């Protein structure tokens, strides 16, 4: 089974190379079906890996049969598996939705190829056991998303994509500078050997600066507050399935996962890194919610709410880091905080993608995204309305839905850890999010149907199926926390990896 690990990266890569050749005029349906099959195959491969992961915690794969000291190592542990599963689900749904939504754009073969490359880049980042390898696949996913944001070639899409490229390019250069500094000190690139060299040769301010560079570089990729300037322009400009992938997966895989791997597993928890994360998270939570309330463009509202939800994840991880540093007494409380953050990461990926797909179907049906020109779509688009209702209910944290559980765990962890101000902030932001989405429903679905919306009908074919899949998954996400076996198999390995930190990562690679 370990032999199949590179398939996560090679399968989308080879299909990305084949698709431009295949995508000629008469082959377009064949290309679309082929691309959908590839994403479904990845989903099945990810799910098939679960029993094997439960058997032994970690799977390592030596590329080229080289010793890890010399060659590159691919690592699949609990955290990577959780990310792989979330990526597979959301990309399968987005690809299905895009099969029909992208009919209005030309050059569909190039769209499919770029989509596959973004998928391969994200899978590569999640499986990377080597710092420079992580950077290369991060670069693939970023460049593919730069091109996809500007895919429509209209005015604001080009500007948004240019701005995203410049800020993303600066972020990538900072990460490469950080890797160079780490290599200068540790003379090794494999994550395990870097952490061993750091622990044995001691800490100098070169490594502190490298850590700062990583936090800034991955922070730019995760659109945390001081660096979020590109997200409110880039996500609305991208076509709907791509903004679903961007908001749902890209900022999490490149930003949050990269930072977690570097901080918890490579550098270890030193100094005030926990407080930095909490600060970033808090700032993003509040700014994202406050800016989001005033928006009239549906997708911009969703983009701002993405920033605030990522803030939750950062705050949860920061809380876990601070508690871990306090010593073993708070270890199980730290486990709860990290569990809340990871669950929120998975939840947010699924229902944010669902919300962006609904905004795509609204845009395709009515041709506009401005809420003041929409209204009363409830009768005409029942499925989209139902999907949007479930999505916004769970993002706002209403009881039976997924978002409630992860926010509950986070707030409980904050309260037990005596961080009352953090818990209060979380609740306040949850209320703002609720207001935001009530406003969305009020203007888009309720109220009089504007006369301009003549022949509006709900979306057809594969777009409908994609939304159904994501709605069912959003409803099922609640069970992940309640049902102990499911939680034990899905979430606990990921939490062990994050809480285990440097020692466990080292032991795993030696074993």
């Amino acid at each position: 089974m370990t032999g199949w690990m590179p398939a996560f990266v090679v399968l989308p890569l080879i299909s990305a190379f084949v698709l431009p050749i295949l995508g000629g005029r008469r082959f377009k349906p064949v290309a679309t079906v082929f691309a959908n099959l590839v994403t479904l195959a990845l989903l099945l491969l990810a799910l098939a890996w679960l029993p094997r992961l439960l058997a032994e915690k970690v799977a390592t794969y030596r590329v080229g049969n080289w010793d890890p000291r010399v060659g590159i190592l691919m690592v699949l542990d609990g955290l990577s598996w959780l990310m792989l599963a979330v990526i597979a689900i959301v990309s399968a749904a987005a690809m299905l939705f895009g099969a029909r939504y992208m009919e209005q754009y030309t050059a569909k073969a190039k769209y499919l190829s770029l989509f596959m490359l973004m998928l391969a880049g994200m899978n590569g980042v999640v499986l990377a056991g080597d710092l420079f390898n992580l950077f290369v696949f991060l670069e693939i996913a970023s460049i593919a998303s730069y091109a996809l944001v500007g895919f429509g070639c209209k005015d604001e899409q080009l500007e948004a994509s240019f701005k995203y490229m410049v800020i993303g390019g600066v972020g990538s250069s900072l990460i490469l500078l950080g890797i160079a500094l780490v290599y200068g000190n540790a003379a090794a690139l494999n994550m395990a050997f870097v952490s061993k060299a750091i622990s044995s040769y001691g800490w100098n301010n070169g490594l502190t600066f490298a850590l700062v560079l990583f936090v800034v570089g991955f922070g730019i990729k995760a659109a945390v507050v001081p660096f979020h300037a590109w997200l409110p322009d880039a996500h609305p400009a991208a076509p709907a399935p791509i903004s679903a992938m961007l908001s749902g997966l890209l900022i999490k895989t490149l930003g949050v996962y990269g930072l977690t791997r570097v901080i918890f597993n490579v550098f270890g928890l030193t100094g005030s890194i926990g407080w930095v994360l909490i600060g970033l998270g808090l700032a993003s939570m509040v700014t994202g919610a406050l800016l989001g309330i005033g928006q009239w463009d549906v997708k911009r509202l969703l983009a701002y709410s993405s920033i605030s939800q990522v803030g939750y994840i950062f705050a949860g991880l920061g809380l876990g880091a601070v508690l871990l540093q306090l010593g073993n007494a708070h270890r199980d409380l730290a486990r709860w905080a990290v569990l809340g953050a990871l669950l929120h990461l998975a939840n947010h990926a699924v229902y944010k993608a669902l919300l962006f797909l609904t905004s795509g179907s609204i845009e395709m049906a009515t041709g506009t995204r401005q809420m003041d020109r929409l209204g009363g779509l409830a009768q005409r688009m029942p499925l989209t309305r139902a999907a949007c209702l479930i999505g916004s209910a769970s993002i706002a944290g209403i009881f039976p839905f997924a978002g409630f559980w992860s926010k509950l765990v986070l707030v409980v962890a904050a309260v037990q850890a005596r961080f009352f101000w953090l818990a209060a902030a979380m609740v306040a932001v949850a209320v703002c999010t609720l207001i935001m989405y009530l406003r969305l429903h009020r203007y888009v679905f309720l109220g009089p149907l504007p006369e301009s919306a003549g022949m509006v009908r709900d979306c057809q074919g594969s777009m409908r199926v994609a939304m159904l899949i994501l709605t069912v998954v959003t409803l099922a996400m609640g069970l992940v926390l309640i049902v102990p076996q499911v939680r034990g198999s899905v979430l606990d390995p990921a939490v062990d990896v994050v809480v285990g930190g440097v020692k466990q990562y080292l032991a795993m690679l030696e074993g």
Partner: protein
Amino acid sequence: MAYALCLLLFMIGLYCVAVKKNLVKIVIGLAVMEYAVNLFLIMLGYRAGGVAPILTRSEVGPKGELSDIFVSRAVDPLPQALVLTAIVISLGTLALLIATCIRIYSRYGTFDITQIRRLKG
């Protein structure tokens, strides 16, 4: 001292990206930043009085064993492999940026951010 100069180049690139108003100037700032990082990587691997890590007839004995002098004096091949990748990444990013610049120019007739209304910050 040498590292400081190289990082000064990085700062100049960062300054250009942050302050300049012209699209092409921003692209140039980004290119300068990537040159600086590539140079920094190669400088990390340099060994005083080093030799290029390429074996020639003189360094290899009849049965293919290496002379110890070569191993003790050769420069580090690993950063060179990383920089080769980084150079081609910067070329790719440059091509994409220029493609977008040209497309924006054909739409607005200018490279200046102030006239292009939607760009903020």
